[in-house]
């Protein structure tokens, strides 16, 4: 028994090391590419200066751009991608539905309503920021969806209840958002909000990293801890119960965990679509459906994908930053179509 534990620990450590190395390379690459030319060597020098006081003489603006703008943005993009992808994988397993994504439970709809309430109506009297409003909105929507799912009649399909409740809740909050925007927004406010809603990393600084990174790491760990439980859901929740999984408790914990993680991420960067939906499917194709591999691989691919999408969003069109949600949709939609087609042939 001790053998097995030790072996597992060592293997996990080895995996963590190569994943960490890959992410570090991606981070440095992402920090070197941007709206203005700042080479790779400069990025390395900035890192050296900050990490072990190497003392390279650098233009303070260039160094500031790399350390205060690009690095936090890349880190948050990575954290966001990892969080959304793993949340998507978990929800797809729990709800037995390949179309499940992190926003299914009303999170992004609620976040947009919260953001709109704060910016347009000044709810919170200036003490609440856009992100704070978004977070509270996300939680409110999630609470409503949970209530709806609980009180839905018919015990035939628990998952069906949850999904329908999620759709109903999302529609409600989306309608609220539309109403608020048309009723009280100026064109400028509407434009600013729309940009945020489609996913926007341009305002991200180190404090956002301090929030996103720990939340995603914690969430990921909780999900990884339950990897075997997630596997047990393969043949349905009854089969999982028969395999010894406390289904209600696990479902509650994991749904709450992913909801919280998603709410935090959405409130920081807005609603970035397709990552939570498509990445888990792509990883399943490559690595199989077992969650021991699916979860960490999804997180890794999600992180890399979103970092790349962020870089693309600011370099694709000269002088203009595209909303990152547009990039993920542009890439995600055809990839999803490909997965569907390929899936059909595989059977």
């Amino acid at each position, binding site marked *: *028994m001790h*053998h*097995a*534990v030790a*072996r*597992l620990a060592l293997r996990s450590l080895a995996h963590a090391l190569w994943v960490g190395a890959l992410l570090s390379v991606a981070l440095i690459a992402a920090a070197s590419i941007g709206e203005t030319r700042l080479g790779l060597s400069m990025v390395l020098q900035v890192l050296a200066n900050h990490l072990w006081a190497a003392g390279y003489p650098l233009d303070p603006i260039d160094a500031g751009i790399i350390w205060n703008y690009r690095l936090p943005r890349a880190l948050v993009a990575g954290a966001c991608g990892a969080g959304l992808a793993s949340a998507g994988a978990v929800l797809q397993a729990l709800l*037995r539905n*390949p179309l499940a994504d992190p926003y299914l439970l009303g999170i992004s709809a609620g976040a947009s309503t919260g953001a709109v309430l704060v910016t347009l109506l000044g709810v919170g009297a200036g003490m609440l920021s856009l992100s704070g409003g978004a977070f509270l909105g996300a939680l409110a929507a999630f609470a409503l969806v949970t209530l709806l799912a609980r009180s839905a009649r018919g*015990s035939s399909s628990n998952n069906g209840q949850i999904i329908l409740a999620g759709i109903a809740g999302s529609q409600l909050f989306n309608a609220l958002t539309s109403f608020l925007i048309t009723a009280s927004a100026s064109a400028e406010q509407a434009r600013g909000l729309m940009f945020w809603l489609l996913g926007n990393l341009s305002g991200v600084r180190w404090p956002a990293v301090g929030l996103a990174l720990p939340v995603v790491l914690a969430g990921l760990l909780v999900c990884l*801890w339950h990897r*075997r*439980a997630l*596997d*047990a859901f*393969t*043949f*349905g929740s*009854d*089969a999982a*119960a*028969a*395999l*010894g*999984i*406390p*289904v209600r408790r696990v479902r509650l914990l994991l749904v709450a965990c992913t909801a919280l993680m998603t709410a935090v991420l959405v409130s920081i960067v807005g609603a970035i679509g397709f990552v939570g939906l498509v990445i888990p499917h792509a990883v*399943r194709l490559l690595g*199989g*459906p*077992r969650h021991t591999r699916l979860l960490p691989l999804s997180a890794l691919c999600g992180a890399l994908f979103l970092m790349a999408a962020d870089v693309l969003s600011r370099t694709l069109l000269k002088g203009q930053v595209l909303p990152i949600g547009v990039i993920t949709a542009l890439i995600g939609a055809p990839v999803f179509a490909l997965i569907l087609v390929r899936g059909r042939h*595989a*059977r």
Partner: protein
Amino acid sequence: MNAFDQQTAALECAGLAYQVKGTPLLAEVTLQVRPGETLGLVGPNGSGKSTLLRLLAGLLRPQRGEVRLGGQPLAQLRRREIAQRLAVVEQQASTDDAISVRDAVELGRTPWLSALKPWSASDAAIVEQALQAVGLAHLSQRPWHSLSGGERQRVQIARALAQQPQILLLDEPTNHLDIQQQLSILALVQALPVTTLIALHDLNQALACDRLALLERGRLVALGKPLEVLTPQRLHDTFGVHGHFIDDPLDGSRYLRLRSC
């Protein structure tokens, strides 16, 4: 009072009642499954066989009565403990995941694994054993979806065996299978040294069990040896058919001949 009654039942229920939205599905069911026996559960459609199995497995909570596993009330046991002693094979298992046969059987080790007891060589050996017991060791790498119905059921049984349970519950495992598959599965189940509770549709297949429990409209109307339970009177009252036993000249076994009323 014979020796059987004094042994602790492997699995038992007392006064079990279950209803859904006011419709009673089971009423006053009291049953004891003896260690080592193969108990068949028979009855017409809607008699509550599946419901009873799910209640015994702890997948449903009864409104009245209780279930005991090895003498302990089910409600007081953790799901993990239950799964280590009791395994369930459903009528039909389906999944969208692209899992392999080995993956599916490995799921059976779930109740035995934990953070302190991760996957080890002994787990792999148990899985291998289970695969061989159902005769599917040569198909272990095949995707689940490429298997036939009978093979899929074997995989489910292998998965259940991998749990190393003391009791196996099977819910009409041969329902939609070819006759050859049906017979081989039943033979397999018969040969298992585990206490088995199997819900069956085909009455002739039920004859092979040690005892039969007959359910009619949610009530237990008969319990005993197959020949004692499936009397012509019972067959007429519960199933609405005429039936009598015939001896098979080939090997002398009893065989039930059924005619409509």
